[in-house]
């Protein structure tokens, strides 16, 4: 009897937490809806400063290295996992552990496999930490990267014996900044939040004009490809190439990554 009375008492209390929970959900949804409808949440933080579209740019330190005799495509952006690789951790058995015999464990006789049916498994290649020359990702040299409001980009220079970007790091920075400021993200389809990398290749003449702008590898999103092309088309000049540089042009490979 005692137990029954307690059951009814507790069963009757279930309504309150349920109502509380429904109320909580309604309030939570209301807060989200109200928050999204708040006036004045416009993009008025603009240009320089900490927020909004302000750029967080980092130039990878440039160390003048001799030019690689092996030219690899897209050295800036290869899919290499990097220089370091973690060793597989060995499973260690505790020396004092005593195996508990499982009462349900049954010893089944192993089926006999005939030698003709058994397939010889290929020997797994021993994993090494060796990294092929030129494939280890960008360590240093003519390379830079930038990021802008969820989007990323990077570039590499070809010309001047391969060390243009390190000898004239200031010019590389000018190119990076100029493209960054002329890339207008609102030209990209707003429904696209993530896309493959788009690679652009263009030349910079001695006077600093970008020419022969072409897509080396499309992202598959036409509006992203176009926005990248237009960023270059908007630029009249990057400024004349350094007077000490003897070549007639510099070839730049530039990539854009969209992720928002």
């Amino acid at each position, binding site marked *: 009897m005692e137990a029954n009375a307690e059951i009814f008492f507790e069963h009757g209390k279930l309504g309150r937490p349920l109502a509380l*929970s429904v109320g909580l959900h309604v309030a939570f949804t209301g807060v989200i809806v109200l928050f999204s409808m708040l006036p004045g949440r416009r993009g008025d933080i603009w240009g320089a400063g900490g927020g909004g*579209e302000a*750029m967080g740019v980092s130039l990878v330190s440039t160390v003048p290295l001799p030019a690689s005799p092996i030219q690899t495509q897209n050295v800036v952006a290869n899919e290499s996992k990097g220089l370091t690789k973690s060793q597989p951790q060995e499973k260690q058995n505790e020396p004092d552990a005593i195996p508990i015999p499982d009462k349900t464990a049954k010893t089944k006789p192993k089926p006999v496999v005939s030698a003709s049916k058994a397939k010889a498994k290929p020997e797994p290649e021993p994993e090494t930490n060796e990294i092929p020359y030129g494939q280890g990702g960008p360590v240093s040299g003519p390379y830079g990267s930038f990021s802008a409001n969820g989007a990323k980009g990077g570039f590499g220079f070809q010309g001047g014996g391969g060390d243009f970007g390190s000898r*004239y*790091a200031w010019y590389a920075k000018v190119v990076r900044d100029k493209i960054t400021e002329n890339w207008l993200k*609102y030209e990209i389809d707003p429904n696209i939040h993530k896309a493959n990398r788009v690679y652009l290749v263009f030349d910079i003449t001695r006077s600093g004009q970008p020419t022969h702008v072409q897509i080396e590898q499309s992202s598959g999103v036409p509006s992203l490809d176009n926005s990248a092309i237009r960023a270059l088309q908007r630029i009249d000049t990057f400024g004349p190439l350094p007077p000490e540089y003897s070549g007639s042009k510099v070839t730049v490979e530039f990539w854009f990554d969209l992720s928002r």
Partner: protein
Amino acid sequence: MSYSHLKSSTYRTTIPFPISTFAGEMVSNLFHSPVHRFRCTLLLGLTFFIALPCFAQDWIRTGTGLGVEKVRLAASDFKATTQDPKNADLLKAFNDTLWNDLDNAGIFDMVSKSFYPLQVPGNPSEVRFEAWNGPPPNASMLAFGDLGVTANNVLVHGWLYDVKNTASPQVLGKQYTDSATTEGARLIAHRFANEIIFRLGGGVAGICESKIYFVSDRSGHKEIWEMDYDGSNQHQLTHLGTISLSPRISPDGSRLAFSSLNKSGWDIMMYSTELSRTVSFPRFGGTNLSPTWSPDGTRVAFSSSRAGEPNIFIADASGGNSRRLTTDRGPDVGPTFNRKTGSQIAFVSGRTGLPQIYTMEADGTNVQRVTDQGYAVSPSWSPNGQFLSFSWFRKYGAGAPGANDIYLMDIASKQWVQLTHDGGRNDFPSWSPDGRHIVFQSSRSGTEQIWSMLADGTKVQQLTFSGRNSQPNWSWK
């Protein structure tokens, strides 16, 4: 009552649920019935749909070289190379001008001089890289050099070094000479600063030698005046003794168009900066106001009421071959060409009541309204053609909050941003040739004065202080 019910009920009331688990269970319970499932899906979908714009909003970009990471630049005081007594004055003028020019450029993060090493270099052999590229200066670039007066000439050597790149540090090495006057030293400093800005600013020429034209009443009448971009060297150009307004310098800097009150009314006048006097320009009759130049310097657009209502007219630079572009009944004034293409004109029209900004092709077709409300006047097109700056009183009306402020609009996307805030009445914005600065008129100091700022609204500084000064116009180069 079954035992299982007893068990479950006891379990539910005695175990404290974390809120998240409880909420999760609520959702799963709701999903048990089809009606509840539909309502819940609808509610969740609606919530995400409404909340999505919060995260999907985009920001407009400057396209002006502002907003990207700034170069950390140190500019050490130049050293004297001779013992001439004029050295001290010229060095001070030179060093101050160079520092101000670089600081005003908007693309440098200037390293404070208090962080500099005690021994500053005067020539390349004296540069100690480790003293500059590490803390406390932590500079990326270093401008340094020397100055010496010999006879009546001043000789300046200036270098710009990339101090993070010790292998090939030199970016710039220049030699300048001019007369040994303060003006000469200032001119050399402007030229050296321009060269640095040109190299590090992506091939955009510096504005250190540019001029600003404006209207001032400090002589007793409203006349056209000229000053350097930093507010120095202010002097009067016209002496007409009436009222002269809306100065607009031609792209090559040789002629200045403005509107002036004559016996016959308001006429477009032309002033030659080479001859230092007014030159002839036809008088059209009616009220003629607010002239503007096309970027190639071959055409002048202005507002004229010769046909009744003030409308936009366009004429050759000599005033010939004038024709009407707008034909509506409302007043149209203040035209300005797209400085990049020259194929579009923005103007102010009162055709729907309060003045609003409109754009049209340079032949008068394809008229489009740009602003949607309030009181919008004084459009000025940016040199890269991407932005329109104008003065806007968005909530115009009795008791409405706010005032005239300078706004910037991206023409392609129609997104705008407010540049001035809470600073009196701000009007007549005009772009600098590099597209990184805007000069404007403001009453924030009590009287109407000329102010300048970076095109993102920062670094606001007053350029004029005496009399009342208004309607600034920045030269094209």
